[in-house]
């Protein structure tokens, strides 16, 4: 699979990941590896934040929508 965003610029770059939101293939230059906190528990026990975060890969346009609105 090729990077979709590179293809829009007329370049052919091998994709290394797929955006978890929109599903496009992206190269290293067009992805953001985000980490989200994971909580477990809840009523009737206090929630606990797990030590390790959950990684996810987004393309830069989707990351921008999530973080900038």
């Amino acid at each position: 699979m090729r990077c979709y965003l590179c293809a829009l610029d007329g370049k052919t770059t091998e994709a290394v990941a797929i955006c978890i939101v929109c599903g496009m293939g992206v190269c290293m230059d067009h992805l953001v590896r985000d980490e989200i906190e994971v909580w477990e528990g809840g009523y009737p026990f206090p929630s606990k934040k797990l030590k390790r975060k959950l990684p996810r890969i987004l393309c830069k346009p989707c990351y921008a929508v999530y973080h900038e609105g």
Partner: protein
Amino acid sequence: MSLAKRCLAELIGTAILVYFGAGAAAITLMISKGSSPPNPFNIGIGALGGLGDWFAIGMAFAIAIAGVIYALGRVSGAHINPAVTIALWATRRFPSGDVVPYIVAQLIGASLGSLLFAASAGSDAVMVGGLGATAPFPGISFGQAVLAEAMGTFLLMMVIMGVAVDERAPQGFAGLIIGLTVGGVITTTGNIAGSSLNPARTFGPYLIDHIMGGPVLWSHYPIYVIGPVLGALVAAFLYDMLARE
């Protein structure tokens, strides 16, 4: 989450429970003041709408409990009831070191809730409404009152185990169902011993009534410790036995 923050959440949650729940009982007595109850088993709650009075009080508790569970459940677990804390500890689900701080926070919160209600509603809330304190109704013995409180708390704890503690339970319903369960129990058993189901819920009104010159009811307090704790313990252990593969 630190123990201090969790205890503060328990304090706030129990204060809300007592302010809005026990407060509804006090308001009902204040509204019915001067009316003629139809029989000696009626002390005023029921003079206006029969069992509907208890249903209204039960719904006030139900909505307050649901709100507290949804708002603070993730912070402290929103036990807001020493009987629930003790039952979760006894079944090895809650750390021993947190039990006493939780119960102290619940007792302080309940007292604060009663104090704030008295400040909101005036002296009649104490002198007429008794701040919604619970006591056995005329003709109800100590044993009957303990049994009614144990039965009510048994159902409450059984529901907590089934809809919240059990990992197989559907998500998101706990607050609503647990609140409505308390509301239903109050509707049925309120006119037996007040349907406290909670040692803290009774402690707060007792303490503030005592301090502010209202009824002194401490001789009844063992009912509201023995009944709820016994009912919650039996429910928790029985549920574990029933649900085990």
